[in-house]
């Protein structure tokens, strides 16, 4: 319990101290014009609230849809690979090759196919999120205990029953690992898509603020992006803790 508190308290207090230092430095006139005082950034977040909210909504929508699409694709691919073991190496190789294409290089290809549009934004995000979830699926599905596998064999379970009742539940810890890695990537994917010239989104807001030298707005949108990334990761950790109750963890503490 105490370790959980210090997990939050330690980085939290470092963050607060840094903020305070910047505020003091700004008040003393030591900060360059590119770094606004934290208080000014917060003021801007309140004053610009409506604009920020509009763009934030659009980014969250892209990230969420892309993330969901990646889960759907990784899940289907994982199911297929589990039912046809021969596909595993091929699927992982293709996945690795696709994953090695820089996301910035994928964007133009998608734009040629789909234009600068919602489907393009969502697909780009899904492309970035797919790989970690897929690898988590494959590793997890392959990690079932040998004896449990033999149990399902003796019971004459169908391949589908094996997937739903054995492989998937035992893969969950790995799948959650993939999901947690992919969640901040969803925000990144949405931003990259927005930089290609969409009309809404925090990515657009950042670019415009940069060109117009609106430092408070730029820092405010960066701050929101950080909150989204960290927040999505944190939310998933919470869901993981609820889904994988204590009996799953190695130390086996009863809930």
């Amino acid at each position, binding site marked *: 319990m105490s370790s959980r508190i210090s997990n939050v308290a330690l980085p939290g207090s470092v963050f607060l101290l840094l903020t305070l230092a910047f505020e003091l430095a700004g008040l003393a006139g030591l900060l360059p014009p590119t770094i606004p005082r934290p208080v000014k950034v917060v003021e801007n977040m309140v004053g610009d609230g409506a604009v920020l909210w509009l763009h934030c909504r659009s980014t969250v929508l892209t990230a969420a849809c892309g993330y969901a699409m990646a889960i759907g694709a990784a899940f289907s691919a994982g199911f297929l690979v589990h039912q046809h073991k021969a596909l595993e190496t091929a699927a992982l190789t293709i996945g690795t090759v696709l994953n090695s294409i820089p996301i910035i290089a994928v964007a133009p290809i998608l734009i040629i196919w789909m234009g600068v549009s919602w489907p393009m934004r969502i697909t780009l995000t899904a492309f970035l999120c797919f790989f970690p979830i897929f690898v988590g699926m494959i590793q997890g599905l392959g990690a079932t*205990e040998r004896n449990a596998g*033999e149990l399902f064999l003796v019971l*004459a379970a169908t391949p589908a029953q094996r997937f739903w009742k054995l492989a998937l539940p035992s893969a*969950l810890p790995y799948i959650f690992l993939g999901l947690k890695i992919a969640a901040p990537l969803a925000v990144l994917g949405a931003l990259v898509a927005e930089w290609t010239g969409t009309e809404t989104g925090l990515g657009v807001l950042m670019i415009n603020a940069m060109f117009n030298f609106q430092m408070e707005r730029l820092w405010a949108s960066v701050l929101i992006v950080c909150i989204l990334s960290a927040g999505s990761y944190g939310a998933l950790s919470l869901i993981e803790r609820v889904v994988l109750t204590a009996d799953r963890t190695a130390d086996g503490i*009863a809930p």
Partner: protein
Amino acid sequence: MGRLSIDRVSKVFDIDGRQVQALKEISLELEDGQFGALIGPSGCGKSTLLRMVADILPPTSGSISIDGAHPSQARKDHRIGFVFQDATLLPWRTVLENIRLPLEIVAERDPDREKLPRELIELVGLSGFEKAKPSQLSGGMQQRAAIARSLVLSPRVLLLDEPFGALDDITRSRMNLELLRIRAETKITALMVTHSIQEAVFMADRIFVLAARPGRIADVVEVGLDRPRSFAQMSDPAFTGAVDRVRQCLFDQQAMAAIDV
């Protein structure tokens, strides 16, 4: 029905291109309702033999039949119950859900069978722990849950791979009695691997003593003790006689092995 017949079964494993004969020409018979015990040195192929009977592994040569049919038929008809050395409960399921698993897999809605998991929980003495997760149970309780699970489809042949290996003597004796009671109630045919000579004699009608390298049957000991068995019988001359004979056979092997080396 539950006749088990193993006819000149051999198993050769390919370990990194090297052929290793795990079992050589094993033949054994168990009549319907008989209790057989397999005993022998570590690595002589007891688990392998059980796996072949359960159709988890195919024999290299020879044949196995359960009620005259191939093991794969018996397996698909759910006539085989298997208790693994470690309980192999699914940690995310409760005790009741674990015991229900075979019913879910058969997926036929038979109202009579739906009652069975709870009755079996009672039979193995786990009442009150239906909702517990395996991690909240002791090793012996987990093993009892695994036994209940192996019985839920009313198999005709029960295969047990050192089911009580990890238990202390007292729990082990209690489990032995429980298993004998279950056997008497269900008239099931059982084949159990054990490392304990006393346990083998106490439980079995027929003991198959195996020798190693290659795994083969060194002796078959018939135990002529009345059922139901009780601990009082342990001082019976028939009991001590059988124990001595099994021990002698195992020790002779060791002596031979020493000469080999």
